[in-house]
C-alpha cells in the first residue's frame, strides 16, 4: 500500500501538479485553498455561518453549480446544433435517435435549466429572509437582481432553439410584449407620435423581423450560447468577489 502511494506521489509528474504534500496542519489547510485556482475563490477561513447548511441553504452555490452543468451540457449540444430554420428541429431528432448520449445531454440541459431558475429564486428568498441585503451588501443584492434577470433571459432564449411548437409560440407570446412597449412598440401607447411601425419597433429589434423566424432563431442562439453566458460569468465573479469583500457571508451584527 505504502509503496503504491510512494509510486503515485513521489515522481516528477505528480509533484509538478501538486506542489506540496497535504499534512493536516494549519499551514497545509490554508495552502490547500490558496494553492488552488478554483478553491481560492474562498477565503482561507470562514465563519461557521458559511458552513452551516441551515443558514444559506447552499442555494447560491447550487445556482452556480447548475450554471456550470448548463455550460458543459450546452457546449455538448452545440456540437450537434445548427441555428437555422431548416436544421434546428432535425438536429433535435438527431439528438434523440442518432447522437450518442444525445437524449441524456438534452434532458440534463433542460432540467438543469428549470432547476437553476427555481434555486436562484430560493436563493433570493433566503438572502431576503436573513436581511443580507442590508449594509454593507446593498450593491451585491443589486448584482444578484441582474443575475436573476439574466437567468430568466438565458432560459427564455434557450426555449426557442429546438424550433418546435412549444418554444415557437412561447417566444411569440413573450416577444409580443415588446410590441406593447410605450413609445417604442408599435402597439404601445404614444408610439404613433414617433412613427413606430412593426418594422422599426422593440419587437423588431428583438426578433430581427416582424415575427419569429430565421433571424430570431439566430439572435436567440447567439444571445443564448455566447452573449448572456459571458455577461453572466462576469457578473457572477463580481458577485463572489463582493461576498468576500463585504466581509464574507453575513452574520448577526453587534
Amino acid at each position, binding site marked *: 500500500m505504502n509503496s503504491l502511494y510512494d509510486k503515485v506521489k513521489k515522481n516528477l509528474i505528480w509533484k509538478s501538479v501538486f506542489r506540496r504534500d497535504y499534512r493536516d496542519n494549519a499551514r497545509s489547510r490554508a495552502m490547500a485553498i490558496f494553492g488552488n485556482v478554483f478553491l481560492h475563490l474562498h477565503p482561507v477561513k470562514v465563519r461557521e455561518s458559511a458552513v452551516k447548511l441551515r443558514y444559506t441553504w*447552499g442555494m447560491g452555490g447550487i445556482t452556480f453549480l447548475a450554471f456550470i452543468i448548463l455550460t458543459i451540457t450546452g457546449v455538448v449540444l452545440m456540437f450537434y446544433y445548427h441555428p437555422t430554420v431548416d436544421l434546428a428541429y432535425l438536429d433535435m431528432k438527431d439528438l434523440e435517435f442518432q447522437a450518442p448520449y444525445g437524449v441524456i445531454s438534452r434532458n440534463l440541459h433542460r432540467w438543469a435549466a428549470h432547476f437553476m431558475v427555481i434555486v436562484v429564486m430560493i436563493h433570493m428568498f433566503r438572502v431576503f429572509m436573513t436581511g443580507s441585503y442590508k449594509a454593507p451588501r446593498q450593491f451585491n443584492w443589486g448584482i444578484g437582481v441582474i443575475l436573476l434577470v439574466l437567468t430568466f433571459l438565458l432560459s427564455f432564449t434557450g426555449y426557442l432553439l429546438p424550433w418546435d411548437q412549444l418554444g415557437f409560440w412561447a417566444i411569440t407570446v413573450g416577444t409580443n410584449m415588446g410590441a406593447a412597449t410605450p413609445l417604442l412598440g408599435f402597439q404601445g401607447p404614444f408610439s404613433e407620435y414617433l412613427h413606430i411601425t412593426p418594422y422599426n419597433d422593440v419587437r423588431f429589434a428583438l426578433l430581427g423581423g416582424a415575427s419569429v423566424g430565421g433571424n430570431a432563431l439566430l439572435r436567440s442562439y447567439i444571445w443564448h450560447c455566447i452573449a448572456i453566458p459571458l455577461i453572466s460569468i462576469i457578473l457572477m465573479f463580481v458577485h463572489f468577489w463582493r461576498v468576500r469583500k463585504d466581509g464574507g457571508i453575513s452574520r448577526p451584527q453587534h
Partner: protein
Amino acid sequence: MNPFIEIITQPDNIAIVIMIVMVTFFTLWGFQQAFQNDKLKASGYAVDGELDKDVDTFKPLVRIELIISLVVMLFLTIWSIWVDAPLEEIANPTITPNPAKAPWYFLGLQELLVYFDPWLAGVVLPTLIVVGLLAIPYIDINPKGNGYYTFEERKYAIVIFAFGFFILWLLLIVIGVFDRGPGWLWYWPWEEWDHQRVVFEPTRDLTQVIGIESRSIPGFIIGAIVVIGYYVAGMLLPLRHWRKNNPELLAQLGMIRYNLIMFLFVTMMSVPIKMVLRLVFLVKYVWITPWFNV
C-alpha cells in the same frame, strides 16, 4: 388517464411540482428559524450565529460543497434518466396552439394580461418589479435583522415581500401552469379541457357601473379622478398617519424614500385590486383614454 395526474406529470410541469415542494420546504425552514431566533432574543439569549467562530475553509466548507454537488448532480441525473425533454411538432406559424403559454417562469406576467393591457402587464409592471427589487436595500432602512432569520424585528418588510413573492409571483405561476386551459379559461387540474367551451362574460368599465359611458368626456374625467386619486390617496394618507403617530420614522426615511416606497407599494396593491374588480365585479377598465386604457 386522470386529468390531474396527467397535468402534473407533463414533463415540464414536473419542474413546477419540484418547485412547489422545494419552496414549501425552505419557507417552513426559514420561518421556523425566524421564530426560534425571536424566542431566543425575547428571553435574552444570543441569536443563531452570534457566537460563531472562524473555521478553516479546508475541509469543513469544501467538504459540504462537495457533498451537495454530488447530491445535486445525482438528483439531476435521475431526473434526466426518468423524464425526457418534450419535443412537439416542428414550429408552424400558421397553427396557433390554444392556449399558447409563455415559459413557466413568465406565466405570472401572462396571467396579469387578464387584468391589465399588455403595455402594463408585459412592460411597465415587470420593469417596476426589477426596479423595486433593486431598490429594496436602499429603501429598507431598518438596521435590525441583518445576518440572521427573524420575523419580529422586520414584520412589515417580510410580509410585503412574502405577499409579492408567494402570491403575486409564485401563486400566479402555479395558476398559469395548472389552472389555465383553452381560451385562458379557468380549469381545475382535475377537469378535462374542453376546446369547444366558450364563456360569455359581459364585462363593463368602471364608470358604466354608475351609468356613465366610459368613452365619453365625463367618463374620461371620472376615470382619471379614480386612478390619480388612488395614487394620491395611497401616498398621502399614510403620510398623514405617520406625521401624527411616528414622525421620527418619517424624518429618518426622508421624502424621496417615502415617495418611492409608497409609489411601489401602491402600484403593487393595484394588482390584487384590479383582480378583484375584474373577477368579482366584472369590471374591465377603470379609465379609458384615447392613448391607453387602465
